[in-house]
């Protein structure tokens, strides 16, 4: 039973992608497959989370090869939560795509690619082996490369070059780091690595390898100063694709950072985690300042992704430096809660930007306007994620920031706490800019002929995912306590390394 649930989040997107490829000529059939597959993925994610919640860390060994030799799939609460979030974003994106992706892209394999991307993302969340993680990263990257360039518009091609180059550099670095680590430890199973690296008497060498991983994952997660590819490419593809990227891709990098820096590279936390903390602060500040300078809806949002990544890694840094386990738990739980909140909110804001583009004919804020007068529902649906992103109570972002800043103050890291607060304020400034330009002021006369009104069926397909994600944001905010207890349990499991190691290495009867 447990084996099946661990493998399902990989099998479902794989089967969906394969079935959609077989139905290449029949786009309407592909649409059915895509929606069914996304629903099934979400369902399997929830079932997995329920099982992990009940039984603790679940492990399956591919082909029944015992742990350090075979490929291990592991699900703890953190990875199960991430799979559920991938399911939610995947389903929302597929429904949104039905009403917004053009026929040409659909005809050239849009839906199979989306599911291939989800396959890579879920694989990265569930694997317990570093080389396997590299392979899932590549699966995800290949799908994202094609999705980004699909359609071949000029800005897309230009964005793709930067995206492809920097991500390939990161992959090469990741691969080199894996090679050196294997040379030293003779294993790539994460649990086995955690055991063996403790026995080695050369912590400086391990820290150096840890830094290679930090750079490799840092490029994927878009932390300072490695984030340039993100705002250069995320604003170029169609809205549904950039929403999917914004929701999931950088978070896979953050997930990997949290995984390796809580499980494997903990020998010199006072150095590595301090560096993570400093980088987090700089990431927040540069991201939010970059957003202030932008005048294009999706570019503003892209820079905010960068700034938010800083908050997620801030919890990781605090957890490594924390003097007590309670404090470490609070900081890490804050990070995980932040990831949960951010994925939902960011995807939703990109959806809203895409609808706004449709109604105003452009992504340029200066040439947008009038949405408040004509689209009161859209306005409401924008305000919920926007305020949440800025951290207004009682929305989800408030509790996410609250727990991180609480942990920062308790750890007496005042600089980073003050930075986090100030950046929250500047985020609000960016959101008010979007509000004033796109929603409040009247639509400029020059844009009127570009505006494309929505048909009723399109309206439904676009507004249902936006509405559902907004409701989820409200739920996370109003029901912060149960959600936070999930995050705390996930943080507990991350900090209790022995539990993870035992679950993987000791064969279950």
């Amino acid at each position: 039973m447990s084996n099946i649930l661990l493998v399902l989040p990989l099998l479902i997107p794989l089967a969906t992608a394969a079935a959609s490829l077989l139905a290449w000529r029949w786009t309407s059939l592909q649409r059915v497959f895509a929606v069914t597959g996304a629903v099934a993925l979400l369902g399997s994610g929830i079932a997995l989370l329920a099982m992990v919640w009940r039984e603790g860390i679940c492990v399956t060994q591919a082909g029944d090869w015992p742990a350090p030799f075979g490929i291990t799939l592991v699900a703890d609460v953190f990875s199960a939560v991430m799979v559920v979030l991938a399911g939610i974003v995947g389903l929302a994106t597929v429904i949104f795509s039905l009403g917004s992706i053009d026929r040409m892209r659909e005809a050239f394999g849009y839906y199979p690619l989306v599911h291939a991307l989800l396959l890579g993302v879920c694989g990265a969340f569930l694997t317990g082996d570093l080389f396997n993680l590299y392979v899932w990263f590549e699966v995800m990257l290949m799908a994202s490369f094609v999705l980004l360039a699909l359609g071949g518009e000029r800005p897309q091609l230009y964005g793709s070059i930067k995206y492809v180059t920097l991500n390939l550099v990161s992959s090469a670095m990741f691969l080199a780091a894996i090679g050196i680590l294997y040379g030293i430890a003779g294993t790539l199973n994460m649990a086995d690595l955690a055991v063996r690296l403790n026995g080695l008497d050369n912590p400086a060498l391990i820290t150096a390898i840890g830094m290679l991983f930090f750079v490799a994952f840092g490029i994927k997660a878009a932390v300072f100063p490695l984030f340039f590819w993100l705002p250069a490419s995320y604003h170029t593809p169609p809205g549904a694709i950039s929403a999917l990227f914004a929701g999931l891709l950088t978070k896979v990098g953050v997930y990997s950072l949290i995984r390796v820096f809580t499980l494997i590279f903990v020998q010199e936390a006072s150095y590595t985690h301090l560096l993570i903390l400093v980088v987090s602060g700089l990431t927040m500040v540069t991201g939010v300042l970059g957003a202030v300078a932008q005048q294009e809806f999706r570019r503003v949002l892209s820079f905010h992704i960068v700034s938010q990544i800083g908050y997620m890694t801030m919890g990781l840094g605090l957890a490594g430096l924390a003097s007590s386990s309670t404090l470490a738990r609070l900081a890490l739980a804050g990070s995980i809660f932040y990831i949960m909140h951010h994925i939902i909110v960011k995807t939703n804001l990109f959806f809203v930007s895409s609808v706004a583009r449709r109604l105003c004919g452009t992504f340029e804020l200066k040439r947008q306007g009038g949405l408040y007068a004509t689209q009161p529902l859209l306005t409401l649906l924008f305000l919920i994620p926007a305020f949440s992103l800025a951290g207004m109570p009682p929305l989800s972002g408030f509790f996410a920031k609250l727990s991180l800043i609480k942990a920062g103050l308790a750890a007496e890291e005042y600089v980073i706490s003050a930075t986090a607060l100030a950046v929250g304020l500047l985020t609000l400034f960016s959101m008010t800019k979007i509000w004033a330009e796109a929603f409040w002021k009247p639509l400029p006369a020059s844009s009127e002929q570009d505006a494309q009104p929505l048909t009723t069926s399109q309206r439904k397909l676009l507004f249902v995912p936006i509405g559902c994600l907004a409701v989820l944001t409200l739920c996370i905010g109003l029901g912060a306590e149960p959600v936070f207890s999930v995050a705390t349990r996930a943080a507990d499991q991350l900090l209790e390394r022995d539990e993870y190691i035992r679950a993987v290495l000791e064969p279950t009867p």
Partner: protein
Amino acid sequence: MSTLLAIVTGCLYAAGIYMMLRRSLFKLILGLGFLSHGANLMIFTVGGLTRGRAPIIEAGETVPLQPTADPLPQALILTAIVIGFAVAAYSLALFHRVNQTFGSDDPDELRVHDQ
């Protein structure tokens, strides 16, 4: 042997980075290729070199009697080469498309289209 391989790895990295810094997209793609080959060779070298001892267990034994070459780095590299092949195919296709659309392969000249 491993010293020689280490030097070759270093040269591949240096050549890769040099190529990536040239003002030509095609050289950028070649550079990325060099970089991934450098990483592959590095895995091979740091994995430990044992010559002439295939990891095959003799008939009737359950463990190899003498130290053998570690097959895992080679398996890793094989996987990485396959992935690198797919990536190279994609980036060449992208390069072709960019060249067709912009009529140039100088990254600086593409910048004007970035709005």
